C-alpha cells in the first residue's frame, strides 16, 4: 500500500482516492464528478498519446488530462 499520483497509475490498476489538491473551477469540477477522497477508481485506459486518461468511478467512465490527474493522490 502506498500513495501515488493518479498520473502514475497503470491501466487496469485499482485504487482509492486519498486526496484532491485542486481548487477553484477545476477543483469544483473534479469533485462534482465524484473524484473525492474515499472513492474507488480503476484506470480504464489511456488515449493513444498516453494523455488523457480514462477511469471508472461509481459505475461510469470519466476522462481527465495528465496534468489534472497530477492533483489527485491515490492509495493503491
Amino acid at each position: 500500500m502506498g500513495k501515488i499520483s493518479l498520473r502514475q497509475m497503470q491501466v487496469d490498476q485499482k485504487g482509492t482516492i486519498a486526496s484532491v489538491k485542486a481548487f477553484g473551477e477545476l477543483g469544483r469540477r473534479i469533485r462534482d464528478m465524484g473524484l473525492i477522497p474515499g472513492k474507488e477508481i480503476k484506470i480504464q485506459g489511456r488515449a493513444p498519446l498516453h494523455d488523457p486518461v480514462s477511469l471508472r468511478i461509481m459505475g461510469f467512465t470519466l476522462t481527465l488530462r495528465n496534468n489534472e490527474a497530477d492533483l489527485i493522490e491515490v492509495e493503491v
Partner: protein
Amino acid sequence: MSTAIVLAGNPNSGKTTLFNELTGARQHVGNYPGVTVEKKQGTCISDAGKFNIVDLPGTYSLTAYSLEEVVARDFLVDEKPSMIVNIVDASNLERNLYLSVQFMEMGIPVTIALNMMDVAKKRGISIDIEKLSQLLNVPVVPTVARSGEGKKELLQTIASTVNSKVDPLIISYGRDMDTAIDEMEEIIQSSAFLTENYRARWTAIKYLENDSQVIESGQKADRKVALQLEKIVEKVSAHLAATLDAHPEGIIADQRYGFINSILKQNLITYYQDKNRLQLSDKIDKVVTNRFLGPILMVAILLGLYKFTFTYSEIPIGWFESFFGWVGNIADSNLPDGLLKSLVISGIIDGVGGVLGFVPLIMFMFLGIAFLEDSGYLARMAFMLDRVFRMFGLHGSSVMAFIVSGGIAGGCAVPGVMAARTLKSPKERLATLLTVPFMNCGAKLPVFALLVAAFFAENEATVMLLITMISWMGALLVAWALRSTIIKGEATPFVMELPPYRMPTFKGILIHTWERTWQYIKKAGTVILGISIVLWAMMTFPGLPETKTQKFENQRSVITSGVTAQVLSELETSDEDQLSEQALTIKESLTQVDFDEAHAGLKNSIAGRIGSSLEGITKFAGFDWRTNIALVGGFAAKEVVVSTLGTAYSIGEVDPEETTSLSERLKTAKGWGPLTAFSLIIFTIFYAPCFVTVVCIAKEAGSWKWAAFSVVFNTALAFGLSVVFYQVGSIVLT
C-alpha cells in the same frame, strides 16, 4: 390553468428524450456531455393537466462551473418554477443524485424520474424505489424515456404533488462548518441579505463554496454584510486547513456524497451481477480507443463520414444546380437584356442558388455528425486527439470542425464552422471557428488546380500535399497565437464523461439534422442574398461609358459588314457545330469582342477600380489588378477566382471544372511565373473566408465583431505571408 415545471438532470440521462416524449417538441437528443445550451420550452397536455415545461441544460452540479450550470441555476432562482422534474439515470444513481441533493437544498419541490430502468436492469442493478422515495422524501417514478414507459405515472405524480410545500433538505457539513453556516444564516436573515432570491442557508453554503457569482452579487447588495460573511468563511477556512488539512469546498462535496452514500447503503441497491463486470461499452472502448487500432479506426470513420457527405450530397446538389440553371434560363429568355436581367440572373438567382446549394451538404454532414455524437463516438474522438489539439490551445473536439472544413482537401467551411458547436468550451470553440476557414475547401481546389496545372505540372501531387500541409500548419499555429493573445485563458479542463455507447434514435437524428439545416436556411439565407446582390453590383457598376460601348458596337459592325445575309441568318439560327467555316470565324471574332467588352466592363466596375487601386500594394505579393479583381470576386465564393480571372484575361467566364484554356493563357501572361502562382496559392489558403462562411462565423460566435475580425485578420495574414514569400523568393531566384 397550466403549471410551470422544469426538466433537469445530468447530461446523457435521457432528459431530452423525455422532453420530446412529453411535449412532442422538436429537440436534439445528444450523447455528448452537455449538448443542450439553449433553453427549450414545450407544453404537455395530458389527462393529469396542462404543463409548461422548460428543458434545462444538462448539468452535473449547480456549482457554476460551466455556462450550462450558470444558466440552469439562474433559471431556478429567477423563475422559481413550481416543480423540478429531476431525471436520474438509474444505472448511474450515485453521481446523478449529487445534483438531486442540490435541488433539494434549494427548497424547490422535486419529483425524481428514475430513468433508464431498462439499462439498469441489463446491468444487473435493482433499486428499491419505494425506499429511495422514502429516504429522500421526494416522489420517485421509474421511467424508460426511449419507449415512453412510466410517462403517465410521472405526469400523475407531478399533478398530485406540484403544490405541496416542501422544506429544503438540510445536510450536515460537519461541526465546524455547521457552526459557521448557522452563524452566517443568522446574519443573513436579520439583515435580509439577498433573501429576495436565495434562502439564507443556501447563500451561506455558496459563500463557503467560494461561489464567485453569489459573492459578487452579495458585494453589490450590501458591502458590510458581505464583508462580515467573507470574514467568517476566512476564519473557518483557516481553521479547517490547520486541523483537517481540508478546504470548505472540498468538505461540502465530500458531505454531499456522504449523504447520498448513507442512503444508498441502506440496502437500496441490489447487484445481481458482478458490479465490476466489463460492460459492452467498455469492451468496445478497448478496441476503439486502443493505441494502434484506435487512430486507424478513427481515420477510417472520418474518411467514411467525408465520403458519405461529399459523395452523396453531390446528387441533390446537382438537382439544385439544374433547377437554378433552369430558372436562370427562363429568366434569360423572358427578360429583356439589360441591368434587370443581369441582377435577376447574376445577383438573385445565383445568390439564392449559392445559399441553397449548401443545404444538401449541411444536411448530410449533420446526419453523419449527429450519428457520431449521439452514439457516443465523438467523445472518444475528442479523448484520443485532445493531446495534439491542446498543444495549440484547442480541444480534442475541434477535430470535427477541421476535417469537415477541408482538413482532408475538399470539404467546406460552412458546415465546418457549424460543426464547431460540438465544442463546449467557449475559448477553444472561438479559436476553432476562426481557424477552420484556413482548411482547403472544395471551392479553393479549382484555384489550386489551375495554378498547379499551369506552373507545377511535373510535381502536381507533391505541391497539392504541400498545400494541405501549409494550411494545417497555418491553422494550428494561428490557433496557438490567438489562444496566447486575444483569446487567452486557461485550457478548459478535460474532466469529461465518456457516455456509454448507444444506438442513436432515428427520430432524434432527424430532428437534429432538420434543426441545423433550417437554422442555416432561415438565418443565413437573407443576409447572404443581400451580400450576393452587393457583390453583383460591385462587379457590374458603373458600367462602360457610352463611347466605349459604341466602340465595341462599331467593332461588331466591322466584323459583320462584309458578310452575306445568308451567313448572318445562319449565325442566328444554327447550332455551333452546324456552322459553315466562314460563319464560325465570324462567330469567334464576335465572341472575342464580347469577351473584350466584359473585360473592359469589369476593369471599369467598382471591383475593378478597387483592384487597380490596390495594385500599388499588391505588387509586393506579385499580384496585378486582374488577380486583385479575381480575389475580390473570391469573397463571394472561392471558385469565382477562376471564372473572374477568365473575364479579366478576356477569355470569357471560365468554368472552374475546365480550366485548360486559362492555365495555357496564364503560362504566357506577363508577370506570371511559379513564384507569382505560389504566392497566389498562399494568399488563397489564408485570405478572408467566403461571405457565407463569414455569416456563419458571426452566427456561431454570437457577434459580427468576430466575423469582421476573420475578414480583416485573415486577409492581412494572407497578404503578409504572400509578400514575404514573394519577396524572399524573388531574391533567392535572382
